[in-house]
């Protein structure tokens, strides 16, 4: 069985394809084409969060806890999605007394925007002739992490501007968490770059397409999760902490500090935080799929790559929900110890080991 190789991938990226298809001339045409492409990709992401937030999350939690959830409106309760959207947007906006206004209003903008920007360089695979990748700059891989980590700025802004003690604690906890896990995350990601020798995201995916070995007629691709499972495990844990999911959801910790930085937010502002968080889960899944799970590759032709990408991203989402149902939350002092005494040391050990192994293999 052949593993779907991306060698037939068109050289053109999605914005270029749109620009050429519409025949838009010049730099302005390029920008308009890019806007249309970005709008389409942005709406795919919105659709993901729309399905995940009001529907899939409840269904999954209900399945884990042996209950029934959202089955009143529509088939499988699916119409809860538009209903929840209208309901949440039509809520009254209550701004707390003494809120720090510009910051209070900007924080819900920053979180979803940072998550969406992270998707700019993710190769989402092909869907028919369409190559779903917006940009492929040389620094792509580092750029996703740079965009994703803007999120913690938003959490601090929200936490401080709300004038609420729980929010303040939540914001400060978000900082502590990011301080502890950003470095292990990026150092582990570096061990992938040691293999590829490039930060270009399309090359990172392409490097994982070669066959590693063949077992009973099935070709195992050289996905980095298979080549270096240790790094994969480290990255998975650091990723959970980075996006603030259980067991590392201490910035929200509903049973300790109400909802942390979200406590004082309502209406559209709350929706945007919720949206931003789900976008970050999907961005985390997308980075994981890109760096360790062979991006959009899978059995079948390259033109259905996007389907495999969606499967991988949703598998990661399911994993976060599994953790949410199964794992207790760590304490903040434990979090700092796990981050600085465990993950940091392990991630550097992993980087050096990987470098030595690559050196031995290459020479």
């Amino acid at each position, binding site marked *: 069985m052949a593993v779907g190789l991306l060698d037939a991938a068109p050289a053109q990226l999605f*914005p270029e394809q749109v620009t050429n298809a519409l025949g838009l001339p010049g*730099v302005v045409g390029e920008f308009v084409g*890019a*806007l249309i*492409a*970005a709008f389409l990709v*942005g709406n795919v992401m*919105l659709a993901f969060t729309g399905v995940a937030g009001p529907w899939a999350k409840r269904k999954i939690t209900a399945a884990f806890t042996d209950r029934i959830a959202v089955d009143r409106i529509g088939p499988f309760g699916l119409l809860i999605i538009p209903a929840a959207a209208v309901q949440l947007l*039509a809520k009254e906006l*209550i*701004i*707390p*007394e*003494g809120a*720090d206004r510009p910051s209070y209003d900007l924080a*819900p*903008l920053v979180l979803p*925007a*940072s*998550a*969406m*920007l992270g998707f*700019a360089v993710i190769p989402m695979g092909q869907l028919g002739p369409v190559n779903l990748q917006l*940009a492929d*700059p040389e620094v792509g891989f*580092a750029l996703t992490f740079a965009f994703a980590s803007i999120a913690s700025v938003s959490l601090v802004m929200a936490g*401080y501007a*709300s*004038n*609420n*003690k*729980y929010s303040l604690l939540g914001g400060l906890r978000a*900082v502590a968490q990011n*301080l*502890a896990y*950003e*470095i292990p995350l*990026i*150092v582990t990601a570096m061990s992938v*770059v040691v*293999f*590829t*020798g*490039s*930060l270009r995201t399309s090359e990172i995916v392409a490097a994982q397409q070669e066959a590693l070995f063949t077992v009973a007629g099935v070709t195992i691709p050289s996905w980095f999760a298979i080549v270096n499972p240790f790094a994969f495990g480290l990255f998975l844990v650091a990723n959970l902490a980075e996006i603030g999911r259980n067991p590392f959801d201490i910035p929200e910790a509903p049973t300790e500090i*109400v909802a942390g930085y979200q406590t*004082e937010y309502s*209406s*559209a502002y709350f*929706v945007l935080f919720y949206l931003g968080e789900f976008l970050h889960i999907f961005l985390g899944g997308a980075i994981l799929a890109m760096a360790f799970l062979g991006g959009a590759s899978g059995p079948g032709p390259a033109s259905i790559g996007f389907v495999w990408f969606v499967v991988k991203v949703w598998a990661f989402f399911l994993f976060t929900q599994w953790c949410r149902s199964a794992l207790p939350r760590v304490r*903040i*002092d434990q979090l*700092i*110890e796990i981050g*600085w005494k465990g993950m940091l*040391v392990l991630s550097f050990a992993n980087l*050096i080991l990987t470098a030595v192994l*690559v050196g*031995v293999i*290459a020479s």
Partner: protein
Amino acid sequence: MSDWIAIGALAVVGIGIPLGMMGVSALLRPSVPEQGKRTIYESGEVPTGSAHIRFNIQYYMVALLFLVFDIETVLLFPWVVIYRPALNAGVPMARLLLPMLAFVGILTVGLVWAWRNGAVEWMSSPRAMRRKTERNQP
């Protein structure tokens, strides 16, 4: 060049969609001001004081360490990127690996020092500790 145009376009969309949602919500939502509605939430109690206070963040030593390691990761990135191509170009492995090991080694010594001095731990506030111990005295 078109890469950065695309990223700029996505930034416009990424800010435009949330702004659009805020706009739609502003058209839809009611505004019913009531006494005490805007009070900040404090478990149903009347809130005491503001949250804009001087607050002991108990991880400032960790934050200092973070700066050091953050710069280290930034400096490591170019090394990581050229490592494989340089190996393929025939540069001996020791010449590539040893300088990086020395660089990481220096920081490891720093981390060990910080670890032994208890910097990578949750700092307990001296005032809170005193209050707790005084309370326990007979």
